[in-house]
């Protein structure tokens, strides 16, 4: 029988430790200079990021970009927890979280000398996140519907509320568990119904009227299931995702940008402080017109480089960002938690 003595155990552990120090650490140090970690949402998003941004970056720099999948709250928490050595070098963020990161001093300023393609991005989109990042892609939150079951869809938020309240159809709207709900639903509908960031009463009144004919989606695929299974006929959803479903064979789905203007739901790119400087080159690829054109073709979302010319297929699907309702992200971030609390008490059961 082999008897493990404490001396053997400690000796073995020390050897393993020494081996890691000798062999592993230089590899880690080496990885820092030639590899970066970038972020992407899952599914088609990841594919598009790899094809449109990672591939050209790797071809130009001969460096490697590892893709970390997840969501903005998780990435921001990771950067907050390790500010000296952030685990991701490029952040993909919702604008409200991008503002949180900017105000907390977690991210670097965006300038044209670091990112030449930034010159092609409208200034308003960079200013919207305090110049510590910029919006590179956006979707519009509007009315998506099953066109075989809804022949005459609502054209505005007001009509949507009116007809859902009357029970003409069941609507699927984002639940409060979905991070963008305060912008794409609460603010957008409040504004459309005469309120705004300082007054969301019209939204809560509308929800109270519609409550018997509402279902809630927890994630984008959940919404698609509601429509395809017949649980709902219409809903509040994104244009790009609607067209993705359409291109995947769900030709019964359609989208309307409401008359009042659907909310612009931008995606910001940011670089954490102390991240690998190679991240600037990757961000430059994200903002490149040619790469963004490819990205828009895959994602069916609008992109922000002013030189982008959309293909004939997606041009009619894209709402120019100037024609959307541009949310006051900073003000929304200040009252978001109050809205969530009110939702919990008035709508959540």
């Amino acid at each position, binding site marked *: 029988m082999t*008897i*493990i*003595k*404490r001396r053997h*155990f400690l000796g073995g552990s020390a050897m393993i430790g020494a081996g890691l120090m000798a062999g592993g650490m230089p590899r880690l140090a080496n990885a820092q200079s030639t590899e970066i970690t970038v972020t992407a949402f899952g599914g088609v998003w990841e594919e598009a990021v790899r094809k449109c941004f990672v591939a050209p970056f790797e071809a130009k720099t001969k460096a490697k970009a590892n893709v970390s999948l997840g*969501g903005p*709250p998780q990435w*921001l*928490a990771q950067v907050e927890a390790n500010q000296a050595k952030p685990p991701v070098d490029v952040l993909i963020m919702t604008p409200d*979280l991008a503002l*949180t990161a900017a105000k907390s001093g977690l991210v670097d300023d965006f300038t044209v000398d670091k990112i030449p393609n930034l010159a092609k991005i409208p200034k308003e989109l960079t200013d919207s996140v305090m110049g510590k990042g910029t919006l590179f892609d956006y979707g519009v939150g509007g009315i998506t519907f099953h066109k075989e079951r809804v022949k005459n869809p609502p054209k505005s938020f007001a009509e949507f509320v009116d007809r859902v309240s009357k029970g003409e159809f*069941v609507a699927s709207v984002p*639940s*409060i*568990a*979905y*991070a963008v*709900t*305060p912008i794409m639903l609460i603010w957008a509908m409040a504004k459309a119904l005469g309120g705004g960031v300082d007054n969301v009463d019209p939204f809560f009144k509308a929800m109270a009227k519609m409550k018997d004919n509402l*279902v*809630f989606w*927890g*994630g984008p695929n*959940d919404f698609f*299931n*509601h429509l395809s*299974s*017949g*649980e*709902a006929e219409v809903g509040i959803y994104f244009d790009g995702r609607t067209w993705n479903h359409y291109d995947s064979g769900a030709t019964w789905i359609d989208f309307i940008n409401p008359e009042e203007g659907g909310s612009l739901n931008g995606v910001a790119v940011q670089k954490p402080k102390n991240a690998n400087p190679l991240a600037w080159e990757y961000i430059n690829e994200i903002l490149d017109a040619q790469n963004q054109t490819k990205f828009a073709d895959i994602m069916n979302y609008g992109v922000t480089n002013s030189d982008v010319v959309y293909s004939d297929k997606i041009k009619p699907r894209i709402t120019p960002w100037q024609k959307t309702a541009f949310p006051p992200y900073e003000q929304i971030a200040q009252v*978001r*938690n109050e809205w*969530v609390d009110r939702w*919990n*008490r008035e*709508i*959540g*059961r």
Partner: protein
Amino acid sequence: MSDTSLQQTLPSRRTRLLAPPLLALPAVLFLVVFFVLPLIDNGMRSVIANDGGFTLSRYASLLTDGFYLWIIAQTVLLSAGVTIISIIIGYPVAYFLVRKAGRFSGLIIFLLIAPLLTSIIMRTFGWQVLFARRGLVNNLLVDQLGILSAPLRLTNSPEIAIAALVHVLVPFMVLSIATVLQGIDTRLEESAKILGANRLRTFFEVTLPLSLDGIGTGAILVFMIANGSFVTLVLLGGGMQTLPLMIYQQFNTTRDFGMASAMSMILLVIAVFCLFLQLRLVRRKGA
């Protein structure tokens, strides 16, 4: 063998004393690193205010605000409801499995475990497909059989979420009860019958008390899993709110990590308290 060679072969007293703690070391380290330290960190976060000072305001809010009390009550009621329904459904199945199924017992166990082989998201979407307003069940009732004039709203409600949770958790109950039922000596039941007890009395006075350990184990498993359930409630609950959903919301939407930590500590205390109560109950009845 000489005394000297025997001494060399046998482990020294010191080695024998050290071996058991050393063998337990990996498990202890694992628990400390992945359970105890995170738990301490979580507890600390829940009492550290945004300005860095000490605060109990989050706990005060959670334990005095009617809204949060209702969320806590709803979480416990949901878990208790799922547990009770699982016992009601699971006990007869376990009894049949042990006493009546014979050569079909393998097939029954397979059928019980089969739902666990698919992802919880697929199972939940399955409920949506079956019970949606234009789903299979409503189509049958409205279009095929003509029993109803309009489809029923069956999904997106607490009731359907409870049904879906029971569907997933009943196997844990059945297997826990079946294991204990299998160990009960049937001669005890026969003796009761010989002494004049009818089948019902035999069951309630002999079989059931002897199988309480199985019910207790199953109840603990089901209660704990239901207490922390998330996906089923998000997809089928229709806006129903429980503590796990609120914790997710604090991380994902409001980024109030302190509140999320306080909520998770309360969830943990509820789970431990209910575990303690159930164990006490089962031991007392069993005794």
